[in-house]
C-alpha cells in the first residue's frame, strides 16, 4: 500500500545534551494502524507531536501526503493540521465551559463550517447521544475521552493520532475506546497511529514500532 507518512533522519533536540529523537526513519502506510510502543521518556510522544504538526523537529524531514510538513509556516502548519489530522490525547482535553456537542463543534468551527447535526451524529457514533448538552465536568473520564474521539473524527481527517488515549481510564472504558478505534480502522480510510506503553494494545493494530532512547528498536507486524 502507498506510504502516507515518510519520516527521514528525524532528530529532536531540546538542548545539546538532551535529544528526544535521534535519527528516526519511518514510513507509515495509508489506512493502517501503527502502534508505537515505548517506556516513558522514550520519545514516542515527541514523535507523535511532530507527525501531528504540533511540534517541529531539529532536523530531518516529515512528508505527509507528499507535503514536507517541517517546511510549513506556523499558519500553514495549523491549517494543515486541522485539515488532515485528528488528535486524541492521554488527558481528556476539553473546553470546560462548552457542552460535549459544542466541544465537537469547536473543531468544526476551526476547520470550516459548523454543522450541529453532523456533530450530534459524531457523538451518537461514540455512544453519547444522551450526553450532548453535558459539560465535561458532568461526564465520566471514559465519556470525556469519547467526546475527544468524536471531536478528532468530526472533520474526517486522514490521520488519527492517539497518545495513550486510555492512560487515565479504567479497563471497561479503555476497551470501549479501543473498540471504537477498531471500528474506525475497519472503515479503511483513516490512518491510525497510537502511542502506548501497553504491549497488549499493540496487538490491536497492524504494526508495532518499539522506541527506546529516541531510536527505533524494532519494527514488526502485529500478531493477533
Amino acid at each position, binding site marked *: 500500500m502507498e506510504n502516507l507518512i515518510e519520516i527521514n533522519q528525524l532528530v529532536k533536540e531540546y538542548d545539546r545534551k538532551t535529544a528526544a529523537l535521534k535519527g528516526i526513519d519511518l514510513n507509515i502506510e495509508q489506512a493502517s494502524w501503527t502502534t508505537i510502543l515505548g517506556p*516513558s*521518556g522514550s520519545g514516542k*510522544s515527541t514523535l507523535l*507531536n511532530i507527525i*501531528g504538526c*504540533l*511540534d517541529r523537529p531539529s532536523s530531518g524531514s516529515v512528508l505527509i501526503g507528499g507535503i514536507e510538513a517541517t517546511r510549513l509556516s*506556523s*499558519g500553514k502548519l*495549523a*491549517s494543515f*493540521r*486541522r*485539515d488532515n489530522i485528528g*488528535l486524541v*490525547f*492521554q*488527558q481528556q*482535553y*476539553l*473546553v*470546560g*465551559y*462548552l457542552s460535549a456537542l*459544542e466541544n465537537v*463543534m*469547536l*473543531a*468544526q*468551527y*476551526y*476547520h470550516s463550517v*459548523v454543522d450541529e447535526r453532523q456533530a450530534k451524529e459524531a457523538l451518537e457514533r461514540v455512544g453519547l447521544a444522551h450526553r450532548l448538552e453535558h459539560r465535561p465536568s458532568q461526564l465520566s473520564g471514559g465519556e470525556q475521552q469519547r467526546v475527544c474521539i468524536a*471531536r478528532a473524527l468530526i472533520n474526517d481527517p486522514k490521520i488519527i493520532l492517539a*497518545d*495513550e488515549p486510555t*492512560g487515565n481510564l479504567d479497563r471497561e472504558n479503555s476497551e470501549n475506546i479501543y473498540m471504537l478505534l477498531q471500528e474506525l480502522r475497519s472503515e479503511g480510510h483513516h490512518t491510525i497511529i497510537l502511542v502506548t506503553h501497553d504491549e497488549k494494545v499493540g496487538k490491536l493494530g497492524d504494526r508495532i514500532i518499539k522506541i527506546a532512547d529516541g531510536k527505533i528498536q524494532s519494527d514488526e507486524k502485529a500478531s493477533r
Partner: protein
Amino acid sequence: MFWRLVLKSLNGNKAKLLAGFLALLLAALLVSALLAVVFDLPNSLGKELRQFGANYTLKAGRKPFSEESLKKLKKKPLSDVVLAYASFAEIKIKKDFKTYTLIGTDLKALKKISPWMRLSSLNLRENEVLAGQDVAEVLGLKKGTELDFTSFIAKTPKRIASNNCISCHAISSSPNHKERLGKKPGISKCLECHDRHEVRERFNSNLVVAGFISGGGDEDGQFFADSQTVLGMKSSAGYRSVSLSVLTSKMPQKRFVGIIKANFDGARLQSNKQISQAEKGLLSKIKLLMILMTIVVLMTCGLSVTSMLSGAVMERRTEIGLMKALGASHSNITLLFAAELSTIALSAGFLGYFGGLGLAALLAQAVFKVTISPSLNIMLLSMASALILALVASVTPIRSALRIEPAVTLRGE
C-alpha cells in the same frame, strides 16, 4: 459559533475575568466622573467665579437704559447666560466744594453680583444713602448724619440762591450779579476772578446716611442710594451702565456680543479682562489637572488589566493550546480574546458611566454646589475609554497567548 464561544467563555471564565471587569469598571467610573466634572467645569466653575464679580459692563450710548429695556436681560436667550446684573444711574453731588458720585442702584442686585461687598443695609428709604467707607472717614459721617448735599438739580429741592464759579468757587449772591445773569442757567464771567462763572441752581437734598458700603474699590469713595431715589432727581440721566455677571461657557462670546448689540442699540459692551483672563487661566489649569488625573487613572487601571489578563492567559493556557491543536489560527485566538475583552470593556464602560455620574454628582455638589446632568457623550467616551484601555492592555497578554505551544501545553507525559 464565534459569539456562542465568546459568551460561553465569558460565562465560564467569569471568576478569572472578574478582576479585569472590576479594574475596567473602576477606570470607566473614574473617567466618567472626571470627564463629567471637566465637561461641566466651565459652567460650574464659571458660576463659582461669578462670586468674584461681574465680568462685563454694558455702557449706554446717547440714550440711557430704561427699566423696560433692561428687562431684555431677563428674557431668553440672554437669560440663559446672564446670571445677574445691576444697573447704575449716577449723578454728581457736591459737598464742601468737592464732587462726589451718588450711585442709584438696586442694592440687592449689587450684592448679588459683588457678594464680597459689605453693605450695612439692602433696603434704603427714599432719602437714605450708604456712604463709602473712605468718603465717610474723610467727611466724618456717622449713621444718621443728615447730609447737606448740593446736587446740581434735585427732585424736591430746598432752593439756595447762589451760583458758583467753576474756577475760584466764589459764590455770588449779589442781587446785581443775579440780575445781570438772569434766572436762566448758563456761563458768564465771575465777578471775583473774571473767569467762567457757571450759573446753576443749587438745592439741598436732605439725604441721611443709613449705613456704609465697602468693597475695596471705587465704591469706597462713592455714595449709594436706591435706584428710584437717584432716577427721581432731575439731573439724573437714567441708567448709564449695567454690570453683568455672564456665564461665558454657555454661549460663544461673538454670539453674546451680537445679541447685546441687537437689543441695546448704541451700547458698548466691555469685558472685565482681569476677571476673564483669570477665569480662563484657572479653568485651563483645572482642566489640565483633571485630564492628567484621568490619564494616571487610566494607566493604573491599564496595568491592572494587563496583569489580570496575563494571569487569565496563564490559567487558560491548556484551553488555548487545545484550540491551537484543533487548528485555531493566531487571528482566531486574537479575535476570541479581543471579543471577550470588548464585551467586558463595553459593559464596564456602560455601568461605570452611571457610577461615574453618581460620583461626579457628589463631587460637583460637594465642591461647586451644582448638579451634573447625564450626557450621552460622556457615556460614549466612558465606553470608548474602557474599550481602548482593554485593547491596549491586552496586547502583551494576547501576544503571550499566541506564543503558547500546544505540544508543550498538552504534553501528556
